[in-house]
């Protein structure tokens, strides 16, 4: 907390526990692989952060196809957490990230608490891993319980993970709940350094030609894309009112204006997700637009845009250089 704020914009964002992003625009888990995939196509080192593909205790082949279906201004996915498993990520990928300027946060998924603990333990202290983002709303159900659905279950999971790793810990929240603010408050109390808001919305696409859902199995998938932006904004605003830890806004961001709206309702950083599928350089264009806006408006920090008050009982500003 600097006494004398810089005269020009400080683009950095402090997500806590030493995780300082060089700028507030990252790419969302499940849309950017492990960073290598797009390295040849866009300047990934300019990104604020790369949130990796969901990584599980062991490799997963993912779901049978079809896995994606386009909807109006959105898409459904049911990938099924295809990933190489934490061992490959820790031993083969992380060493390559260690030389990168862009922080890589590993998104972590598991079927039960021991699974989450095993993954974060393996990643703890590994050079190249800037932090972990806990996916507590994965489609896998442990004993009939989805951690992201219930504040107490979410808190138990986060407490266990918090004990298992000193790494910066971001918890990605599910929007498919009655009160996302209650879940946010529970995970903050359990030791989360920040929250990502939000994961995909449960959706269904039906083929009239086939007279059944397009996606296999239950037929449901996670809805993302511009269609969910108003929903995500509402979720971020609710969470901002419920917690004082940093909030990473995610959901339907395509343009700099979209991202700036998330800052207005209380986000400290943002993730660009599905927009990357449409335009691999989307996140960089969002970043450049945000920087241009900040310059034109004379912003000194992104929180200058914030219109939503912190909760009355919050201990005070805890986020953002100069906040």
């Amino acid at each position, binding site marked *: 907390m600097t006494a004398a704020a810089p005269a020009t914009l400080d683009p950095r964002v402090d997500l806590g526990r030493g995780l300082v992003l060089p700028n507030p625009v990252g790419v969302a888990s*499940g*849309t*950017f*692989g492990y960073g290598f*995939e*797009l390295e*040849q*196509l866009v300047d990934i080192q300019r990104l604020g952060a790369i949130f990796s*593909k969901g990584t599980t205790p062991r490799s997963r*082949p*993912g*779901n*049978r*196809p*079809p*896995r*994606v*279906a*386009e*909807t*109006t*201004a*959105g*898409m459904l*996915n049911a*990938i099924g957490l*295809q990933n190489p498993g934490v061992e490959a990520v820790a031993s083969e990928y992380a060493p390559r990230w260690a030389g990168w300027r862009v922080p890589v946060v590993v998104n972590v998924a598991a079927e039960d608490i021991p699974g989450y603990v095993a993954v974060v333990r393996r990643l703890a202290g590994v050079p190249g891993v800037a932090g972990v983002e806990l996916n507590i709303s994965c489609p896998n159900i442990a004993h009939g319980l989805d951690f992201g659905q219930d504040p107490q279950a979410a808190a138990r999971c986060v407490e266990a993970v918090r004990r298992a790793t000193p790494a910066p810990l971001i918890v990605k929240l599910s929007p498919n709940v009655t009160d996302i603010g209650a879940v946010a408050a529970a995970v903050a109390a359990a030791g989360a350094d920040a929250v990502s808001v939000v994961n995909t919305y449960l959706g269904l696409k039906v*083929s009239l*030609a*086939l007279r059944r859902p*397009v*996606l296999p199995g239950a037929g449901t998938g996670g809805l993302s*894309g*511009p269609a969910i932006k108003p929903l995500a904004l509402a979720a971020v605003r609710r969470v901002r009112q419920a917690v004082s830890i940093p909030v990473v806004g995610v959901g339907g961001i*395509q343009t700099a204006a979209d991202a700036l709206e998330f800052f207005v309702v209380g986000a400290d950083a943002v993730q660009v997700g*599905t927009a*990357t*599928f*449409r*335009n*691999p*350089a989307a996140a960089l264009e969002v970043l450049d637009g945000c920087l241009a806006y900040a310059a034109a408006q004379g912003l000194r920090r992104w929180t200058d845009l914030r219109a939503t008050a912190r909760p009355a009982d919050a201990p005070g500003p805890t986020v953002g250089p100069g906040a």
Partner: protein
Amino acid sequence: MSRPVAALPASDLGRAVDRSARVSQVLDLGAGSWELTLECPEIATRARPGEFLQVQVDPAPVPLLRRPFSVCRADPAAGTLGIYFGVTGIGTARLAGLTVGDEVRVLGPLGRGYSLPPGPARALCVAGGLGAAPFPFLARALSAAGATVHWLNGAATAGRLYPVERLGAPVDVTVVTQDGSRGVRGVVTDVLPDLLTAADRVYACGPNPMLAAVAALCASAPTPVALEVSLEAPMGCGFGTCLGCALPVGGPEALALCCRQGPVLAAEAVDWPALLALPPAHVA
């Protein structure tokens, strides 16, 4: 039938660029099929037969995703690319409605294309309907490489045949239509066994049932013939990060990404029964 996914090399994105391309020709080929010519010198120079493009058809987010198309033509001298497609949904309808001078975003070249024979060879291209898309480009490249090319061009009816005169390469052509409105009445696999006796390698693109039948014939020929097939899948990104375009290969859990390990796969890598159990890509 099973070859592990790891054995399938993924494409690299080192040659891919994302560019705005001007539409220079819109050709209505009838029966809902179209050929579009795009001015895009960088990709025209970089593309190889069998690779594909991701085309953003509208600056507004509907349709949200780009549409994948095989490179039908690539003319480095003219700086142009061609795509051949049928109108199957909102994306292709928008493309068919473009006029000369319109701009679209084109990302490419993407994916793994066909492998060309190292020396003189007798190549057979088997096309089913819109599956003709990659073959004008491939036939030219094969001819340039010294191969002789026979094109087995099949469709439901004459109006859905890719126009032979547009091939632009010296090829022998056999035409087959299901209704007999042109060429031999029947399907490509009716005439394939005879043609296989004079082929060293086969390239195929078309509906999955046709490809499966072609694969079975190539594998069971007196002298089995190497076959490469171009496949499609509902696709999110085209560059390997959404993991949406999985195709069944090998054993019960083995999947390959159409966009990175494909769209062209060796026929023996494909799990044909599993592929045939999937709904057509354009329905999803």
